[in-house]
């Protein structure tokens, strides 16, 4: 169990004699390598690296698509920090990430622990629980969510039965974000499948030995399961957090394109979309995109830095 890692594969041993022949072969291999990866190379240069440079430049300009970009220095960034809607979008996104991601991962881990016990129907449950991850981002499910969380629909009526008269969440600027949280938690299946695969790799002997030593189930979870699956936990935390920062479609559809009401679902990318494609402030939007990149890079860096302290790699697997 290792994370993103490049284990260099040795080339087939050079078979001809003489350094000149080897050199010629090496050059031919290089040519073949670059030819095979030319689609990716072209894509990387034209659709990733080039646009990144352009985006960085736009971030310091005022650009409306129709006239050429005007250099404005740091104006976009100062305007951004003073913009109450930008700050609102940061607040909404952070709330969504900080509440949604842990809930989703806790549920994923909990259900994975349940399904790790081999019982009848286990495979069927696993498949059914995974299904929302495939359709969760679709417009259709966005429509369903709008319906389920509106006034007097199932969620509202269910909560009323417990004496919580909250009304529909979709129309409530404070509650609507939690319908999006519910939507991401509903898609716990993808991280669950990864947890399950990790749980399967924990050697049985460890549990048996712990049992002989009199360790209870909680102790076994804490001292064996958790450290043993920490690499997959790390992977899930990293991917889910990064993805949550970039949520767009669900917020756009569930809020009926408004990212509201009252900016209640104004997630970061929703505001970026409005700035870029409704107000054609491409410079401002590019500056926003770079702030998002910075935030994601920061989270990634902190997670990678912290993994020394809590992620245990099997010896030899690292």
């Amino acid at each position, binding site marked *: *169990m290792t994370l993103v890692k*490049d284990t260099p*594969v040795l*080339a*087939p041993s050079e078979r001809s004699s003489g350094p000149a022949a080897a050199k010629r072969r*090496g050059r031919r*291999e290089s040519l*073949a*390598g670059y030819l*095979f*990866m030319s*689609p*990716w190379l072209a*894509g*990387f240069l034209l*659709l*990733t690296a080039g*646009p*990144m440079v*352009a*985006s960085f430049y*736009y971030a310091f300009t005022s650009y409306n*698509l129709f006239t050429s970009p005007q250099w404005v220095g740091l104006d976009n960034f100062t305007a951004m920090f003073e913009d109450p809607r930008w700050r609102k979008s940061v607040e909404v996104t952070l709330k969504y990430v900080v509440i949604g991601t842990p809930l989703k991962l806790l549920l994923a881990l909990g259900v994975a622990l349940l399904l790790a016990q081999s*019982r009848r129907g286990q495979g069927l*449950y*696993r498949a*059914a*629980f*995974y*299904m*929302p991850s*495939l*359709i969760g*981002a*679709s*417009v*259709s499910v966005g*429509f*369903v969510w709008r*319906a*389920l969380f*509106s006034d007097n629909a*199932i969620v509202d009526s269910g909560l009323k039965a417990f004496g919580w008269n909250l009304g529909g969440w979709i129309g409530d600027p404070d509650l609507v974000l939690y319908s999006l949280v519910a939507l991401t938690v*509903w898609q716990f299946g*993808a991280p669950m*499948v*990864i947890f399950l*695969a990790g749980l399967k*790799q924990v050697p049985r002997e460890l*549990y048996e030995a712990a*049992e002989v030593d009199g360790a209870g189930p909680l102790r076994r979870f804490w001292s064996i399961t958790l450290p043993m699956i920490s690499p997959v936990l790390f*992977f*899930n935390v990293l991917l889910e957090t990064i993805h949550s920062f*970039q949520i767009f479609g669900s917020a756009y559809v569930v809020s009926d394109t408004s990212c509201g009401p009252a900016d209640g679902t104004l997630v970061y*990318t929703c505001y970026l979309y409005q700035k*870029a494609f409704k107000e054609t402030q491409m410079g401002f939007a*590019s500056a926003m*995109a770079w702030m998002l*990149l910075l935030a*994601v890079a920061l989270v990634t860096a902190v997670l990678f830095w912290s993994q020394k302290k809590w992620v245990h790699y099997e010896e030899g697997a690292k």
Partner: protein
Amino acid sequence: MSTANATVPTAGSRRRTGSVIWHVSAIAVLAVVLYPVLWVIGASFKPGEDIIGSLDLFPADPILSNFSGLADGMANIPTSTFFLNSLMYAGLAVAGVVVSSSLTAYAFAKIQFRGRNVLFSLMIGTLLLPYHVLLIPQYVMFQKLQLTDTYVPLLAGKFLATEAFFVFLMVQFMRGLPRELDEAARLDGCGHLRIYWSVVLPLTRPAIITTAIFTFINAWNDFMGPLIYLNNPDRATVSLALMMFRDQQGISDYGGMIAMAMAALVPVLAFFLAFQRYLIDGMATSGLKG
């Protein structure tokens, strides 16, 4: 797990209670997971005005008029147009991603060349790069090339292996293939193209199937791409059409919208039912190795 209880005297009864608790919990989770899907199936057979208010999952008197309304299409465009657009987009996306990713993966996994490790790290780096940084300059570029309102901007990245996740999945898979196979082929005088086509590609089939299905589903569900690049209703995908026409005919056709939303889920659910093993195993290995 049950082996652990075998030494305890009350093992039998404890195992039975454990089993009951297990099944009750699993069914409770199942109910929550399936509810929205069952709801939309039921709702598509309800009259539009009954959909939001009623709490019954399935209507007492199911109606089919939502679907017949759907067949009439929207704003004079037959509904089948949107489904065909989505199908074309998803089909071409699959072709593009499978070809470009497998070629790139072969280079990373099977050819030794200068700069390979640096490029591999760059490729992995793009996995974590938020797409939004590229969104605006890509839009500007495609607009200058007058390619907006076509599928080119949506498909260009698929044919140029920008979906690093799938390249990575295939690299991992190809590295796991026994090296003796391609070494033997090389001794027989095969070039890389031959080895790629006749040796590596057939053996990579499971990873290719996983990639193909995920790509199809992602393209089918894709909303942001069509939203930004496609304006002409004739060219809309199903997801975009759902949003474009959601309020045009007023609340009276809400039933039709829900029926279309339900129909849009059918291909994804069908793929899921047919290939769930490939999808779940593909996800699982990506987590373990990646």
